[in-house]
């Protein structure tokens, strides 16, 4: 796996952005950027090419589910992998995210192990499709 892939971390809580960033660093992924809601994430996505987006759902401004829809609706990003990391854990919400085209779903609170597993799964698919 190319450890230099560019990853965008989207969460309104700076603690959670740092946690995800540190856990990615532990796995050797250090090329990350951060945004605090869907709107600022879209600005980052327009500025540079990213290989993966890790986003929260519940955020002020644009929530993660709308960010996911915006990404899927944009032809230049439609196939960009999106991992949802969220405390939203209702069955219908998971289905909503799946229907919107999410690539993985991690429920908070999560362990480092769970996040690693989900990331590895997405990375495996990225490699397979490369």
């Amino acid at each position, binding site marked *: 796996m190319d450890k230099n892939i560019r990853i965008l971390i989207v*969460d309104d*809580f*700076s*603690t*959670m952005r*740092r*946690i995800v960033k*540190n*856990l990615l660093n*532990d796995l050797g992924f250090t090329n990350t950027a951060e945004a605090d809601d869907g709107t600022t994430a879209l600005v980052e996505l327009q500025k540079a090419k990213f290989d993966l987006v890790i986003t929260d*759902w*519940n*955020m002020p401004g644009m*929530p*993660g*589910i*709308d960010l996911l829809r915006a990404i899927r609706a944009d032809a230049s990003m439609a196939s960009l992998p999106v991992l949802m990391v*969220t*405390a*939203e*854990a*209702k*069955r219908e*919400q*998971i*289905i*909503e995210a*799946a*229907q919107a085209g*999410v*690539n*993985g*779903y*991690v*429920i*908070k*609170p*999560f*362990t*480092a*192990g*769970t*996040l690693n597993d989900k990331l590895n799964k997405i990375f495996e698919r990225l490699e397979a499709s490369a």
Partner: protein
Amino acid sequence: MNTGFDREALSRHLLAALAALEQDDETGWRRNVDELIQWRTQPLVQGITRLARELEQALGETGPAASPTSLPEACARLEHVVALTENASMHSLDLIDECGALLRNLEAAVPEQAAVVQDIRGRLSELTATQGYQDLTGQIILRVVGLVRAVHAGLGEIIGEDEAPVRLPQDNRGHGPAVAGLDAAPASQDEANQLLSSLGI
């Protein structure tokens, strides 16, 4: 408070409304019916107004210096809790970073303990993930802050002229972590995995 049953006034308004209706006097029957409605709802409005004042007073009596504590101030206190836990979490993450640097030195100095160092790294990763409690508790607290602000705005409107329902917005923004006993039980990671796999993801 006008809670008594004023039979004479009641019949006067009823009869006047009936007479006005029979004479096609719309203004007249509306005025009398409005009087009846006001008589009927006044105790309710007064009760709610009293409750609002008592709530403000009760909050005021909790402070050590007996300073009046308003609902907005109660919200500010809750937001302070979020800031405190954020600082504590960030400090923990700083310490975890420092431990990582110390482990790199240790690994270089004592290569035969590489396996132990790796085990400690794994635990530091879990410690990092555990700091996510700050995000979870923060989301719950900020949701309560939103509710209290809505109650405050709603009470203000009742005391004032307009009436507005006090409700949490129902939209797709997400609602934060489920609280046991209050919200529907959340899906576990295993359930989410099964659900996603059944949807081909």
